[in-house]
């Protein structure tokens, strides 16, 4: 779902908190899933999503006056954060954990197994795509997985549209050489073969009452 009214762009740019709240409602899920596809970790994705909107607020003066949805811009911020933020914010996480416990939240244990499956699937995808340069992977993530058009991806990455096209074309050419067997076969053993480092300690999950209470016990974060 995109933010429904392009006019929100102007209000958000002017520092209207309510407008940002509306944009958050419309785009948080998309940013969250994009971040997951980049990091391969749901808890890391949640942190990237949260940091994305804080960063967006901080840099709201960079919003172009004209344009439509702010989603491409937000996905671009998330891409940068997922790329550069190797060490997540444990205090931020702790703050979220406090609020999580303070509220009476439904347990989402049934959801956990599905999320683990997702993580395994995205890990396999990352391994299959390990030969792609990071830039090409990011374009693929934005265009193929998040459904952005070329112009939107260009806006997200702050590069010309032609660059997006060429990166995607290059990715396609490289991936065409992979056989189906190579795509399904785990590669690399214990070594990290993809271009991204996962942001969080493996096995960490965030959310839910029980998990939230364990945040500080489960290890804080990683470094870049």
């Amino acid at each position, binding site marked *: 779902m995109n933010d429904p009214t392009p006019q929100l762009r102007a209000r958000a740019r002017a520092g209207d908190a309510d407008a940002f709240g509306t944009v958050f409602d419309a785009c948080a899920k998309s940013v969250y899933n994009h971040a997951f596809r980049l990091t391969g970790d749901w808890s890391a994705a949640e942190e990237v999503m*949260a940091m994305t909107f804080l960063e967006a607020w901080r*840099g709201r003066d960079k919003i172009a006056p004209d344009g439509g949805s702010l989603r491409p811009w937000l996905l671009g911020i998330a891409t940068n954060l997922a790329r550069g933020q190797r060490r997540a914010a*444990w205090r*931020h996480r702790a703050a979220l954990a*406090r609020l999580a416990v303070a509220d009476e*939240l439904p347990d*989402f244990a049934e959801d956990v197994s599905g999320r683990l499956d997702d993580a395994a699937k995205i890990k396999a995808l990352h391994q299959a795509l390990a030969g792609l340069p990071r830039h090409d992977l990011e374009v693929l993530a934005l265009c193929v997985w998040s459904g952005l058009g070329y112009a939107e991806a260009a806006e997200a990455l702050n590069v010309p549209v032609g660059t997006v096209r060429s990166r995607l074309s290059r990715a396609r050419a490289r991936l065409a050489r992979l056989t189906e067997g190579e795509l399904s076969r785990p590669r690399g053993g214990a070594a990290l073969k993809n271009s991204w480092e996962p942001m969080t300690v493996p096995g960490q999950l965030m959310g839910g009452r029980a998990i939230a209470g364990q945040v500080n016990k489960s*290890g804080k974060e990683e*470094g870049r």
Partner: protein
Amino acid sequence: MNADHADLEVRFAAPTERDLPPGRHNQHREILMNHMLTASGQAESAPARHNRRPRRRILAISGTAGGVIGAAAVAVAVIGTSAAPSRPPAGGHVASPVGGHAASSAATSPLIQLASYLTSSAHQQTGDATLVIRTSTYTTSGASGSYADLYTDSGAYYGARTVSGLPSQIAAHRNLGGGMFARAIRAAIFAAHHGSLAVARKRMADDPAADSGSAGSEPASNSAAEIAKAKALGGIKPAPGQSLAAAVNAALFNNMVWVNSVNALVAGSGNPEVRAGVLRLLSTVPGITVTHAESEGQRTLLVIDGDLRSTQTLTLNASTGIPIEFTGGAGKTPALTVTYKVSRVTVAAIAAGKF
């Protein structure tokens, strides 16, 4: 489905999108709204011109870097540049705790001492970029990976899995920095040369008013029940007269100072001004302790952020402040260890494949 890349969508289909876990959307929204309402109404202004690092006379410098030791030992970076102080500050006992809440003992903090030493000593810079060879190792899985990060003094960042991959990144102008590292480095340099750490903290946290807005200006609205709940949970504890929301905001703010400072320390590790500024800033983050240690005959400072349950530790060369290692995780065995090998280089040399 976009017809232009439908083939890729089919072949590399990602998992179906999921909602945030129940309740999390509203929590994040609440935090965002709270942050926006307590922070400044103005976006961060462009950095002042005086933040720019002054031009320096360049002298001959070796530009060598430190070595990375195995996982069991603390890695040691031997700084071979003439930028390294010839005489380190006092201290240097093995694992001797020297600080509690660093923010409350800033005057005696080893971080402040080292920062003062770095800013008062004569330093010469060579090159126009810092090359960091970063190796990350995950304890549980045994996974590891090395990366070559090139941070230019102008704020650009180029990354590749190996140094040999950098020339193509430079040639293609693939600057991945996005201004992030440049901002943090500017804030660190400001902290190194200006008295107001409060202002420096705001700049490092990327929000000019977040500190004042979250660290005590909010009316006292906390109840005994709120404080008791926070105490029971551990971690974030409102100060007397401080609401839980204000404490959360303060934690968020300090987190940004910590995260961005460590980013700046790594990205600007070849610049003693940056290191000095970061050390000053780290000394202001509540809950950080500093411990002297020694490894492989080299004195180090362990900057520890966390508690007995979960800890992040940044290991610095005690004489230069150059980062050596970062660990994070619960218990005695860190879940992740990142080592850094730092050297000063020129972009031209790297671009030309001269490593």
